[in-house]
C-alpha cells in the first residue's frame, strides 16, 4: 500500500469516526447493557434485591410456553405479511413504473397508506372490523366479532400490515425496475419473448439483488411487529408477538432481567434472519454493482 493510499484510508476512518461513535453510543451501549442486565434477577421495584443469576433468565424464557407461542405467532405474521407484500409490491411497482396517465397521481395515491402512522392505521382497521361501530360486517352481511377469534384476529393484523407497508415494498421494487436496461427488454422482444417471459427471464433475475434487500428490510421489520398487535388485540386471542412478550416483562412487570433476556433473544432472532439472507441467499447489502 502506498503512502498516499494509507493517508486516504486514515482520512476515511477519521471522517467516519463521528458517525461510528454516535452509533456505538446509541445502539451498541444499550445492547451491551441489556445483555448485562439479562444476567440478573432484577426488578425495578426492588433494586436492592438485584442478584446475579447467570443464564437463569434465558432458561426461564426458553422453557416457557409463552415464548414459543409468541415466536410462532411472530413467524406466522412475518411470513404472511411479507409474502403478500412482495407480490402486491411488484404489482404496485409495475403500475407506478408503467402508468401512462397521471403518473404522479398514481404514485402519490399508492404511497398514502405508508404515510399514515401505524397506530392510527391499526385503530382504523380495528374500528372497521368492530361489530358495533365498523362497516365491514355491514358490508359483508356478517355478524362475527373478528378480533375475538384467533384466526380472524391474525387475518386483521396481517392485512393491516400488508395495507400499511406494501407501498414501501413497491417503492423499493420500483427502484429496482428502473435499473433494468430498456435495451435488454427490447432485445428480448426482438427475439420473440412475450411479456410474461420478459418479466420472468429478464426483469426478475436482474432485480434479484434489489428484491432480496427489500425482503430483508421488510422481514426484519415485520419480525419486530409491535404497534399493530398492541392496538388491535394487545396480544389477546393468542396473538402475542415476541415484542409484546418483551414489553409485558420489561415495561409492565418492570422485570428488567427477564425482559432484557427477551430483548436479547429477539435481537438474536433478528441477527439470524439477517444472516440467513446475507449468507444463505447472498444479499449484497452494500448494493455494489450487480455482476
Amino acid at each position, binding site marked *: 500500500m502506498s503512502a498516499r493510499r494509507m493517508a486516504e484510508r486514515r482520512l476515511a476512518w477519521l471522517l467516519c469516526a463521528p458517525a461510528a461513535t454516535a452509533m456505538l453510543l446509541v445502539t451498541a451501549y444499550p445492547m451491551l447493557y441489556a445483555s448485562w442486565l439479562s444476567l440478573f434477577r432484577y*426488578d*425495578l*421495584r*426492588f*433494586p436492592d434485591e438485584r442478584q446475579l443469576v447467570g443464564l437463569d433468565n434465558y432458561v*426461564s*424464557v426458553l*422453557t*416457557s410456553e*409463552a*415464548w414459543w407461542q409468541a415466536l410462532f405467532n411472530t413467524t406466522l405474521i412475518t411470513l404472511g405479511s411479507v409474502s403478500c407484500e412482495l407480490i402486491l409490491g411488484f404489482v404496485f411497482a409495475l403500475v407506478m413504473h408503467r402508468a401512462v396517465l397521471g403518473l404522479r397521481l398514481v404514485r402519490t395515491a399508492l404511497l398514502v397508506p*405508508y404515510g399514515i*402512522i*401505524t*397506530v392510527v392505521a391499526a385503530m382504523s382497521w380495528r374500528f372497521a372490523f*368492530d*361489530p*358495533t*361501530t365498523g362497516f365491514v360486517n355491514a358490508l359483508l352481511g356478517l*355478524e*362475527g*366479532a373478528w*378480533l*375475538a377469534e384467533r384466526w380472524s384476529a391474525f387475518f386483521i393484523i396481517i392485512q393491516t400490515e400488508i395495507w400499511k*407497508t406494501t407501498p*414501501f415494498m413497491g417503492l423499493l421494487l420500483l427502484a429496482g425496475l428502473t435499473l433494468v436496461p430498456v435495451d435488454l427488454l427490447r432485445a428480448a422482444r426482438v427475439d420473440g419473448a412475450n411479456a410474461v417471459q420478459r418479466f420472468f427471464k429478464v426483469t426478475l433475475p436482474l432485480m434479484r439483488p434489489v428484491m432480496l434487500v427489500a425482503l430483508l*428490510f*421488510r422481514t426484519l*421489520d415485520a419480525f*419486530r411487529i*409491535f*404497534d399493530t398487535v398492541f392496538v388491535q*388485540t*394487545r*396480544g*389477546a*386471542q393468542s396473538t402475542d408477538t415476541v415484542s409484546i*412478550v418483551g414489553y*409485558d*416483562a420489561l*415495561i*409492565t*412487570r*418492570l*422485570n428488567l432481567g*427477564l425482559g432484557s433476556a*427477551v430483548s436479547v433473544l429477539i435481537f438474536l432472532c433478528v441477527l439470524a434472519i439477517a444472516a440467513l439472507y446475507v449468507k444463505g441467499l447472498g444479499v449484497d447489502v452494500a448494493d455494489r454493482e450487480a455482476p
Partner: protein
Amino acid sequence: MTSSSTWFILSFAAVISMGGCQRSSPQRPKLRWYVFDEPSGAFERAAKRCSESSEDRYTIEVAPLPADADQQREQLVRRLAAGDSSIDIIGMDVIWTAELAEAGWILPWPEDLASKAREGRLSSIVDTASYEDELWAVPFTTNAQLLWYRADRVKEPPATWEQMIRMAEDLGDRGTIQAQGERYEGLTVFFISLLASAGGSVLGPDGDTVSLDEEPTRQALSIMQRLAKSPATDPSLATTREDQARLAFETGESTFMINYTFVWPSAKSNAPEVASHMRWARWPSVLEGKPSRVTVGGINLGVGAHTRHPGLAREAALCLASEHNQRLAATMGGLPPSTATLYDDPAVRETFPFADLLRETLRDAVHRPKTPLYVDVSLAISHTLHPMRDVEPAEDTERLRDAVQRALRSEGLL
C-alpha cells in the same frame, strides 16, 4: 416501518416537554399533581381552588396522564424509579398502593395527618390506601360496578348470575348481557368480584401466598364459562371493555349490563330513550341469599417519595380530596365520592340517583390483592382466564393457582 423509532421519539419529546416546566420560584413552590386527564375539568378546578386557599404557600399544577390506568402506571413508575423530584402528588389507582409503597416511591402519612385523611371515609376505601398498618394516600374518588337493566323488558332485577343469564336467554334476541371480557385489568376485576361474592380470595391474608380455595374459585369460573357460552351474551365479549359495553347498551339492543356509574350520565345525554328505561340494582350475587361483593376502584392521592415539599404536598392532597372537591368531581365528572356522608348530599344525589345503592355496595366492596406484585398477579389472572368461553372450571382452578404462584415469585413469562 420505523414505527418503533417514532414511538421512541414521541415519548422522548413528551418527557422533555413535561420536564421542562417544573422550575418553581422559591417563595411559592409549584406542586405537580400527576393524575389521569379528567375530561370535565373538575380536577383543574379543585387544583385552582386549593392553590387560592393556600394563602400563597403553594400552587398546584395538574400534569395529565392517559385515561388508561395501565398506561398511567407505566409512565409514572419509570419516573419514580428514576427518582424524579417533580412528582409531588400522585393520583394513584387503588391497586398501586402496595407496589409504590414497597418500592419506596411514595411517602407514608404520619399518624396525625392519616387520621385526618381517614375521617368520615368509607372503610373499604381507606383500606385501599393502607398497606402494612400505614396509610399511604388520602382517598379521593371511588368506584364500583352496579347492574344496569331495562325496566321495560324485565319487571324485577335478577338477584343472582344464574337468574340473570336465564332471564336474558328467555328474552331471546334482545336479552343480551354486556360485561367486560377483554384480556385486561377489567377481566381480573370481574373474576375477583365473582370470587369474593362466592366467598373466596386470590391471596391469603398475609399477601404472600396463593389462596384461591377450590369451591369458590370453581364457582366463579363456572359462572364465567356459563356467561361466555350463553347465547344471551354479546358475541364480542372477548374484546369488550367498559366503554364498548356502554356503547352497545346505548344502542338499545341489550337488556343487562355490568358497569360503572359513568354509564348513567352518558346514557342520559347520548340515548335518552334508553336512559328512560334504564334501572339499577346491586351486582348479581353468586350464592343465593348472599349479597355480592364487588371490587372497589377509584383514585387515592399519594405523595411522591422524591418531592422537595413533602409537607406541603400532603397538605395540598388533603385539600384536593376535601368534601368540596369530592362534590365537584362527583357532580362535574361523575366520580363517586369516598366520604360516606356525601351520599346524602342533594347535589350528589341528583347526579347519582342510585346513591344509596352505591354506598351500600361500597360498604361491602373488596380490595384487589394487596401485593407489590399486583400487576404480575393481575396479568397471570387475565391471561389464564381469557377468553372466558374456553374456561374449564376444574382444570383452570389448578392453572390459575400455578400462574398466580409464578407471578408471586416473579418467575418466568406469564
